[in-house]
């Protein structure tokens, strides 16, 4: 796990909340918006714990590969997750 992303660990319960929340974080980058929608659509079909974990990993992987390019979106996701108390 790359801690510099400051995203919660995949086991953190806030991942499930943010991924299944009706409202997405406010993203400004098109690829982030598409990525997050793709993940949410996958969870419409299967929201089991293993599916949520796979979705969390997909989001994490995306931000790991594109962190500088989508820094504002990363901050938005972190902010939303931090506001979701377990």
């Amino acid at each position: 796990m790359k801690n510099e992303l400051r995203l919660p660990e995949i086991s953190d319960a806030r991942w499930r909340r943010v991924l299944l929340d009706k409202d997405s974080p406010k993203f400004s980058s098109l690829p982030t918006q598409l990525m997050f929608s793709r993940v949410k659509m996958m969870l419409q079909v299967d929201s089991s714990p293993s599916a949520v974990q796979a979705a969390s990993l997909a989001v994490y992987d995306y931000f790991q590969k594109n962190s500088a390019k989508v820094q504002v979106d990363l901050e938005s996701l972190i902010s939303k997750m931090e506001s979701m108390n377990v």
Partner: protein
Amino acid sequence: MSKLVRIDEVNQMIERGEILAIAGDEALLRQLKPGRWIAGSIPYFMDEAGGLFSKDKVLVSSFADVATNAKIVEYAPEELSRIPSDYFSNGFSIIILPSQSQAHSEFSKHSFSYPQILNGNLVGWISGTDLNAPSQKPLVYNGASGHGALYNKAVVLHCELPANRFAQTEIVNIFEADENSDTIEFFESGYEITDCKVNGEKTNFAQYLKSKGVDTRFPLVADYSGASINVSFKEVAENRVSLYASIFPLAKYRIARHITDYETAFKQSLGAVGDSRPIFSCNCILNYLYANLEGKKCGAVGPITFGEVAFILLNQTIVYLSLKEGKRHG
């Protein structure tokens, strides 16, 4: 930088070894010399002076001052999912697909789910024809191969950027979903639609549109986590609706909010494009027609296309690619 040029001028650019993406009428594309270029057929353009139809000039986007390396790859329909594996780790990729081909259909239906597709910058367009010459066939060219016209393949120009710059894929969409309109869902991906669900109730889509008197100049719009993504109407028949891009069964669509003055709304939305000085841009033929862009400046020089690509196939949208200073990877 993109500009409209004569065929002898673009051949000089090719001979200098420039990396190019070219749009033009088929008869002109056949006269291009072999080189590091891709091309697609279309005779409609947005130039500095305004929108125009031309069979005398081609629109060329040169990446000579931008790219440090480039490669051109052809993809058959069954190979399209491999596009991201050819991305440079820092760069952008320009794709051109022939309209109404199997490659076009495959890309429209499935690119959203291609692994790693969002970890780069994939932009481009769907080639087309003169609207008054329906017997012509849309085509693309790979200038490096000498294969001649390709009717059922995508050509992609993958470009690498220096470490101190990164590309950003952006869109301008004047449409947004009308939140007071019905929610429309579909049962499977595709262009040819019979049935849908309106507010959860199954109904015939064509009959629904007719009963509501929907103005089909305005597209279906789905909200993708803040991005408004359009699918435009091609034809509403008795019991079937044809679209210009695939719908997705898990997306929720609404008809776009009505715009009284399409032309003015379109012009007002263009500031962002001009400010970013894009290295590539394309705009939709439906915007050209519905906003009466012929002879009018709109600030985004590029081909007027039969569909736009920003990772996925879009309609009635301006796609552009801008360069930023800094490292892409953290």
